[in-house]
């Protein structure tokens, strides 16, 4: 509280008894405090590093990892380094390839090479496997002749270009695939063929469904939070128990409960038919509706709690002040109360939206094929096809989308952004 007395007039800074300047002493005192703070957060920081940042980081590198050719055909690639790429390479390249394939024969490496090359051109798998079966070559015959004799494709330029292309230590292949892009034979990034485009739609669908769920949560949660903030402590505690009730059961149980309620012979449909609102049961499950209902139910507390904590801090006197200044109740609410809840809306919205983006179990159990979100495909690639590259790339896309969203939030709604809070 500054009165008219100005205490900031420049006073000569006193030095300590030993002559240390004041600034230096201040720094020393602050360093000690900072060290203490550092020690306090150290355990958490270690846990985050070991259990969060490191695994995520290594998973993300899998998305661009390209070891098959790079690790198994190093000599061939070394020879191809000086190759001009306009005609099939010289004998040394053929010899190196034949040696390395021979070495890989019978180990998992050969399958990895075949699989990787097959991604460049369907048919290369059988080429590699067929060749491997006939190895080793007769040392007397030139390797080129022998390989071309096994399969004429070894004499073609495209085959060698494919090996050369696939030889990098890193590949954008999975990342591009996860946004429906690919690299064509000429090395340009192009849109994938129409029948292979899927992930952009899935990503947009993930965004859209998350948005709908967030908006529904806000619409449902705002009045509840408002009620809780304005009721007496006893009543608001009661409401709080109801809000937190969903946390006491597992997500799986709640999803199963929704299946029971929403199925064709379920409670909701029977009630609707009994009321005469519908003649035949409505399809409430395995479509968007069911997913929205269950996700809102599960995520509602994450909206209500931040809203409540913000609303609890808004003194009711502001509304009274607005009324006393002649503003009608609804407008007072909208102009005075609502803007002060924006930090809560931002925090709750962000929380719900980000959790939605990564939701898996609810759409998987309650949705049809058209409701599956990005995480379903991540699970699909990790569990079903064991394609870690694709799973990692999709995860990276999801993470990037989430981070982007957070930055937008921090820019426009974050606590440092809401202008009037700066002064606090």
């Amino acid at each position, binding site marked *: *509280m*500054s*009165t008219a007395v100005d205490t900031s007039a420049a006073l000569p800074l006193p030095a300590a008894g030993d002559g240390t300047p004041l600034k230096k002493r201040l720094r020393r005192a602050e360093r000690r405090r900072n060290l203490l703070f550092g020690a306090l957060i150290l355990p958490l920081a270690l846990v985050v590093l070991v259990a969060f940042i490191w695994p995520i980081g290594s998973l993300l590198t899998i998305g661009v990892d390209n070891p098959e050719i790079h690790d198994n055909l190093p000599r061939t690639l070394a020879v191809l380094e000086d190759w001009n790429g306009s005609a099939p390479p010289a004998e040394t390249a053929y010899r190196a390839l034949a040696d390395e394939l021979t070495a890989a024969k019978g180990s998992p490496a050969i399958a990895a090479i075949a699989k990787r090359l097959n991604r460049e051109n369907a048919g290369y798998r059988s080429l590699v496997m067929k060749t491997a079966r006939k190895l080793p070559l007769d040392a007397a015959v030139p390797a080129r002749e022998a390989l071309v004799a096994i399969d004429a494709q070894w004499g073609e330029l495209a085959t060698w270009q494919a090996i050369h292309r696939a030889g990098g230590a890193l590949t954008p292949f999975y990342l591009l695939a996860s946004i429906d892009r690919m690299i064509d034979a000429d090395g340009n990034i192009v849109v994938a063929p129409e029948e292979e485009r899927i992930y952009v739609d899935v990503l947009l669908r993930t965004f859209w469904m998350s948005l709908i769920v967030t908006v529904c949560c806000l619409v449902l949660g705002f009045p509840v939070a408002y009620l809780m903030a304005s009721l007496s402590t006893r009543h608001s505690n009661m409401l709080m128990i109801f809000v937190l009730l969903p946390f006491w059961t597992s997500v799986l149980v709640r999803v199963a409960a929704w299946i029971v309620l929403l199925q064709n012979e379920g409670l909701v449909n029977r009630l609707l038919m009994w009321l005469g609102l519908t003649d035949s049961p409505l399809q409430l499950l395995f479509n968007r509706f069911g997913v929205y209902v269950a996700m809102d139910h599960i995520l509602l507390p994450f909206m209500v709690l931040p809203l409540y904590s913000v609303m609890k801090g808004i*003194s009711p*006197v*502001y509304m*009274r*002040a*607005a*009324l*006393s*200044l*002649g*503003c*009608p*109740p609804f*407008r*007072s609410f909208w*102009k*005075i109360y609502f*803007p*002060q809840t924006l930090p809560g809306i931002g925090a709750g919205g962000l929380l719900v939206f980000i959790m939605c983006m990564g939701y898996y179990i609810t759409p998987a159990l309650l949705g049809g094929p058209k409701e599956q979100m990005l995480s379903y495909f991540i699970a699909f690639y990790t569990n079903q096809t064991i394609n870690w590259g694709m799973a990692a790339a999709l995860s990276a896309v999801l993470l990037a989308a989430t981070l982007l969203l957070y930055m937008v939030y921090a820019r426009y709604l974050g606590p440092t952004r*809401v*202008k*009037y809070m*700066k*002064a*606090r």
Partner: protein
Amino acid sequence: MEAVHNRQAPHVSFRNVQKTYDGETLIVRDLNLDIRRGEFLTLLGPSGSGKTTCLMMLAGFETPTGGEIRLDGEVINRVPPYRRNIGMVFQNYALFPHMTVADNLRFPLRVRKLAPSEVEARVKRALDMVQLEAFGSRYPQQLSGGQQQRIALARALVFDPQLVLMDEPLGALDKNLRERMQLEIKHIQQKLGITVVFVTHDQSEALTMSDRIAVFNQGVIQQIDAPEALYEYPTNSFVADFIGENNALDGTVVAVAGEECEVRLDCGTVLRARTGNVGAGGRARIAVRPERVQLAGEAEGTNRLDATVRELIYLGDQIRLRVELAGKHEFTIKAPVSQLDRSLRPGDAIRLGLDPAHTRALDVPAAH
């Protein structure tokens, strides 16, 4: 509200107003109060005395359980607060934190759909009035307590209300600032000629600012009077004790003769005093202000009391004497330094005189 008001007609009147929250205890019992146009009226009382409830009923945030409140002659019991056109300054200012100072001031004007040029002119005038012209673009949190207080005042006045309510607006300020703001608010009120109803529990604040003070206790107005009358002529013991310092001596009324009466103290001394709310034969409490007690020396006269000095406290401009008298230990005398015999020491016997004109026989409050 545009009608020419009769200067004599009360601006606000409470008639038999009651308020209860739980249906059992009345927070406001039976309030009858006329507030004059252009006066500075303070509702003073301890917490829970019903003063704030009265203010809130007038503002429209509480509804009377019984009786009626009239503003300019019209019953406003059912008029919602936003249609009352009453300015209000809240305890913690209630400046909207998400709006700049200027936007806070614009708010009531925009609600009233004033032309933008008029809005700006009035905002500027209001900021000038509280000497914060340069602070329009700041947010309330960037202002000191005193500055926020001024802005809250400016906001309550910017739409030219004829009646302004203030709910302990100075409670959060430190002492020096509070005293400055008291005078500032008083001057603004006098300049604008508005009616102000001011709630406080600080009696010196009430004495400084008010034209009249209504002293509340237990939901009832104990006395409503100008500051001087309230201090000099309290009508009951509560007011005498609540406003300023008071010495109390218990006794029985032996005779009443018009304005004056005789009270026999429990120690046997008979004192003459002005008759307050007591009758002959009843118990009475003699009330006298410390600065009205005379040090009588040896001279005989009416209302003489023997006392023993217990303590002398030097306060610069005056000396406080704590004396023992009639078996009571809590009797205080205030005297200017120049008029006191400086040779007095604790244990000395002195003789006190009580002027009957400044000694009042009041009720004995029920023991707590």
